[in-house]
């Protein structure tokens, strides 16, 4: 795996408009994203050799990548639909890098898009929420999704004295960043009090500890490091990746305060020959605020149990020690289900290209994305950097 370091690069990245998109089906969002990313890469749709997608939750099909290929009018050498929830984005980048490095394809487009906000009927939305958890041993207890994460939050509070105020601080930071992003779904600034006075959903999580439900799509174009040099935009190289998979069901987790981010982070840092101190900007999966706290610890940005004071000190804000989710994340930029984590990576690409305007992290040259699927189930970590980092 280590020999893949720096051999492939992201040469195109594109976000569709996000928020409420009643004009667009999930397929439409995917096509919009591919078109934008391919143009960003200075390529044509007919150049695409590999296509990796994840299925739509709103309109699932059996062969999703083939569906998108058909709609694009291309016949790729490789089609792959991946399913590891929010972690899918890391898995797809890793598989794209492997496919390019082994010569299966000269380039790969990764695209994910869905319309959870406007596409679901009420029955579909309820059925989708009720389908989380083991059908015999978890679903009969009727835990809404926030309750699964409340179990994690409660355990972290008990073990380390983490407070609701500290969790709220994660949402405050995300909303501030989104206020600087012209395309974000929710751009209003929040205070800790706003979070704490919002509705209690599952103790200790309030409404604003929970992420959004949005429509949106995004795509990436990857190619070899050699071919990347001919592309119009600054190539962003894949320096490292890793995965960690401890459990599928939260009731079977061996820890409620430590996750597979430990293993995925270790692998990604080892491959990239980097440490947390080298990272200038991070994108951390933020479906609920306590998840960011656990990720900060498990990836080594702060010692175990100290993420509460760490975020309270402003460490994850723009200008802080390690700015996190400068686009606003799932908490305030957008959360269209599985595609949500794509924006964590497209944001890093923009940061490392110095394209982020008001929310730019000055001189950012190394970015980390940690993304996860399920209830702390499927973890993936990516490290990306400009040419100077290879």
């Amino acid at each position, binding site marked *: 795996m280590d020999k893949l370091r720096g051999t492939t690069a992201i040469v195109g990245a594109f976000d569709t408009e996000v928020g409420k998109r009643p004009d667009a089906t999930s397929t439409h969002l995917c096509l919009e994203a591919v078109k934008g990313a391919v143009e960003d890469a200075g390529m044509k749709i007919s150049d695409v050799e590999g296509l990796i997608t994840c299925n739509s939750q709103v309109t699932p099909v059996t062969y999703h990548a083939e569906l998108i290929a058909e709609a694009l009018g291309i016949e790729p050498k490789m089609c792959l639909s991946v399913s590891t929830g929010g972690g899918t984005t890391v898995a797809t980048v890793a598989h794209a890098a492997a496919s390019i490095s082994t010569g299966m394809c000269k380039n790969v487009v990764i695209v994910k898009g869905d319309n959870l906000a406007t596409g679901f009927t*009420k*029955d579909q939305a*309820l059925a989708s*929420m*009720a389908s989380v*958890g*083991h*059908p*015999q*041993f*978890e*679903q*009969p*207890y*009727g*835990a*809404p999704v*926030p*309750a699964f994460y*409340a*179990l*994690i*939050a*409660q*355990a972290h509070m*008990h073990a380390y004295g983490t407070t609701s105020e500290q969790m709220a601080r994660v949402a405050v930071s995300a909303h501030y960043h989104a206020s600087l992003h012209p395309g974000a779904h929710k751009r209003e600034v929040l205070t800790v009090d706003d979070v704490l006075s919002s*509705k*209690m*959903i*599952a*103790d*200790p*999580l309030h409404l604003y500890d929970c992420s959004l439900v949005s429509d949106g799509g995004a795509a990436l174009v990857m190619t070899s490091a050699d071919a990347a040099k001919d592309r119009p935009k600054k190539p962003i190289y894949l320096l490292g990746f890793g995965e960690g998979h401890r459990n599928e*069901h*939260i*009731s*079977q*987790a061996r820890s*409620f305060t430590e996750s597979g981010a430990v293993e995925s982070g270790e692998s990604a840092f080892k491959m990239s020959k980097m440490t947390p101190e080298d990272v200038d900007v991070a994108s951390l999966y933020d479906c609920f605020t306590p998840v960011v706290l656990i990720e900060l610890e498990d990836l080594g940005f702060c010692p175990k149990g100290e993420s509460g004071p760490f975020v309270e000190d402003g460490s994850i804000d723009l200008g802080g020690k390690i700015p996190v989710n400068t686009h606003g994340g799932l908490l305030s930029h957008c959360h269209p289900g599985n595609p949500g984590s794509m924006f964590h990576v497209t944001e890093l690409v923009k940061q490392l290209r110095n394209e982020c305007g008001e929310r730019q992290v000055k001189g950012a040259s190394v970015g980390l994305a940690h993304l996860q699927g399920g209830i702390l189930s499927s973890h993936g970590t990516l490290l990306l950097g400009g040419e100077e980092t290879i």
Partner: protein
Amino acid sequence: MTSSPQKPVPVPTPDTKEFWDGCSQGILRIQKCEDCSSHVFFPTLVCQECHSDRLTWVSSSGLGEIKTFTVVHRAVGAFAPDAPYTIAIVALDEGPQLMTYIVDQKESDLAIGKRVAVAFERRLDSYLPVFKLV
């Protein structure tokens, strides 16, 4: 058209029938490895500790402790009228963990580490394991 929601009931499979039959009889049954003596839950074909396939069904003590919990204030579908209710992960004294309800307690009495004992709550023709503080 919105269909009226119903709470899900467990639909046993050949692998889990022994467990649910036990619940109907008021017994919490889990699997035990004949090779390494580990207890296993969810029901499975191989021991998750030593990967032996020599698993047998035994009765759990039904005693354990709260590993973590949450009080659900906003529930969805058929569960909405039940809120607030308490969901917990309980670790049995034998080792395995399960998701469950904690019933018949004041919210202020709940805490991680508290001792609990199993009880069974009827839902249609099924009996779900739930726990009470002891």
